[in-house]
């Protein structure tokens, strides 16, 4: 009995000595899943950056609303002009018809009736007056500042809606007993539409009253009076319409839709970091980046006068040197050595001297950026934001000492594709109408240049010429 012990304790004593290893396939499956997870993380990154870009666009949108509706490049400006022209001409026709109406009224020899007619407009009058209102609105707005014109763009749409309703009403008015039906219809309209309608109608009434000229030339025959009146109206209206067209055209500042920009950019990679990420043992060695000269170009499209989008391509080189490295140690973890080369062989070749490690990388960079113009004079200023995708092009590591160098391999943890988020400013000087000199200091935050290594910041000054492709 004395030798008896609890079964649990007995099992524990035995099992403590157990030593077993899992099969190698376990690590393979873990490694595969970890890599898959890394790849999967790229998608949220894109979602984030695209989100930021869209957010940026929407933040800038209110500032460019004035130009947006007018200058959006995918929207035919001629069409806009034509629409406005139509509106104007409609207005003219309507004015003519209203003039005819008023002349007819005056023909009846009773001016009072004319006033009464104005004060209690029929549905047809509604239609005409709506048209008049929209025409007048557009005319008056063209005379006013651009701001007031585009503030009323929503109202304009609503008015168009009402105009359509009114036109329907006008058609209906041609059939029997239209007045009462249309009266009912207008009373059935949404309160808001009613308000706008009543506002436009009131404006029209007021304007009609203002424009109403009592006929004092009693010596003329009714036919002559009508003729003269029409002539006078035509004389009055025609220049006004022309003026309006002119004003509308003048108010649209033409700008180039597309441009190209070629640049050279002295660039510094690894801002605010002076530690080598080649191996944790090299963290105390001084590491410094070099200024490199990168070349590239953009093609851009002006969305509005102030906002533009551009897509580019460039060859970006980044060189870093880690100084005074002792190779008398095991191989460094983030270097994929060339066959036959190890730290020991390097030590033997360079007589156990401390060496500099030079990392040379180049990337094909595809930037996608938005620019917003803050100041647009002879000298201008812009803010720039966007993202870049960088495809690894060159990856070499060499050791140097006393002008002797040896390529020992490449960096093993460098990703084939990585991304940056870009932010900067743009300054320009207009050389001519289509040519300008740009200088753009841009910071790029490199999210994932290598597996697990610290994120890097690069700074480049893109300077070059921008040429507008069309005007």
């Amino acid at each position: 009995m004395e030798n008896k012990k609890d079964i649990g304790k007995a099992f524990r004593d035995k099992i403590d000595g157990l030593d077993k290893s899992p099969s190698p396939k376990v690590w393979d499956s873990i490694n595969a899943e970890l890599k898959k997870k890394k790849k999967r993380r790229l998608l949220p990154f894109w979602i984030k950056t695209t989100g930021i870009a869209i957010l940026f666009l929407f933040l800038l949108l209110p500032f460019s609303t004035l130009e947006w509706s007018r200058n959006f490049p995918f929207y035919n400006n001629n069409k806009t002009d034509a629409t406005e022209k139509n509106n104007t001409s409609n207005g003219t026709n309507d004015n003519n018809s209203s003039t005819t109406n008023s002349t007819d009224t005056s023909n009846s020899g009773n001016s009072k009736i004319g006033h009464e007619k104005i004060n209690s407009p029929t549905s047809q009058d509604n239609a005409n007056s709506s048209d008049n209102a929209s025409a007048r609105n557009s005319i008056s707005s063209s005379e006013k500042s651009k701001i007031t014109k585009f503030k009323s763009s929503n109202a304009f749409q609503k008015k168009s809606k009402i105009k359509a309703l009114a036109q329907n009403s006008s058609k209906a008015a041609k059939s029997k007993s239209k007045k009462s039906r249309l009266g009912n219809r207008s009373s059935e309209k949404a309160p808001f539409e009613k308000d706008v309608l009543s506002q436009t109608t009131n404006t029209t009434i007021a304007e009609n009253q203002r424009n109403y000229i009592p006929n004092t030339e009693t010596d003329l025959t009714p036919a002559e009076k009508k003729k003269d009146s029409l002539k006078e109206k035509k004389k009055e209206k025609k220049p006004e319409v022309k003026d309006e067209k002119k004003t509308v055209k003048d108010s649209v500042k033409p700008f180039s839709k597309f441009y190209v920009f070629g640049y050279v950019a002295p660039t510094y990679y690894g801002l605010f970091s002076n530690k080598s990420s080649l191996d944790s043992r090299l963290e105390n060695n001084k590491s410094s980046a070099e200024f490199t000269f990168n070349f590239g170009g953009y093609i851009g499209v002006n969305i509005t006068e102030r906002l533009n989008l551009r897509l580019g391509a460039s060859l970006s080189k980044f060189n870093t040197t880690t100084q005074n490295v002792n190779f008398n140690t095991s191989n460094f973890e983030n270097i994929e050595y060339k066959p036959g080369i190890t730290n020991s062989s390097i030590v033997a070749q360079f007589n156990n001297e401390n060496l500099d490690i030079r990392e040379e990388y180049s990337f094909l960079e595809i930037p996608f950026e938005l620019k917003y113009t803050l100041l647009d004079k002879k000298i201008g200023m812009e803010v720039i934001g966007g993202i870049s995708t960088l495809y690894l092009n060159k990856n070499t590591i060499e050791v140097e000492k006393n002008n002797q160098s040896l390529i020992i391999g490449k960096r093993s943890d460098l990703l084939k594709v990585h991304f940056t988020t870009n932010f900067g400013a743009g300054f320009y000087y207009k050389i001519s109408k289509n040519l300008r000199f740009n200088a753009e200091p841009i910071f790029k935050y490199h999210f994932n240049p290598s597996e697990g290594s610290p994120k890097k910041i690069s700074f480049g000054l893109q300077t070059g010429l921008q040429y507008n492709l069309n005007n």
Partner: protein
Amino acid sequence: MNLESLIKDCIRQKSKAQEELYNRYKDILFVLSLKYCSNEAEAEDNLHNAFIEIFTNIKKYNGSGSFEGWIKRITINKAIDSYKKSYQMVPIKDDFQDTLIEEKEIDFSLDTILSLIQELPTQYRLVFSLYELDDYSHKEIAQMLEISENTSKSNLHRAKTILKEKIKQKNSFQNNYNISNGE
């Protein structure tokens, strides 16, 4: 490389560091998994899931407790999670018997000892391993497995009873074998 810098590199998702961490702890966690799983294949699956969880959440390790304790808890929790997914009620028999044995009665190989544990019904195995082999209290086991403390106690006793019966069977089989072979 010391553990601290190894963990740092794992946070930076360096493949080499991950591999080194795996090699450092794979045996400990595999043995742990073997105690909670019904066979080696299941234990390997559990080890896989545990390491994925460890590498995914390694940045959450704040260094306050032992790292080994932290990864062991993750491994045990993974085993419990898979048990919960395939939860089966175990009939509880209140046949309280003596669970004491003589040491010579369990003079088996480690593999046989392990297989005896692995053959236990899952819930019994978990409670037995948690309580007897990894020093968890009934209160903690009750929380982890979402059962009552009494159920945990009862399951433990039942596990021990089953083990005792199996040991008896094995011993009698061994005796019969020896007799038939004239040993």
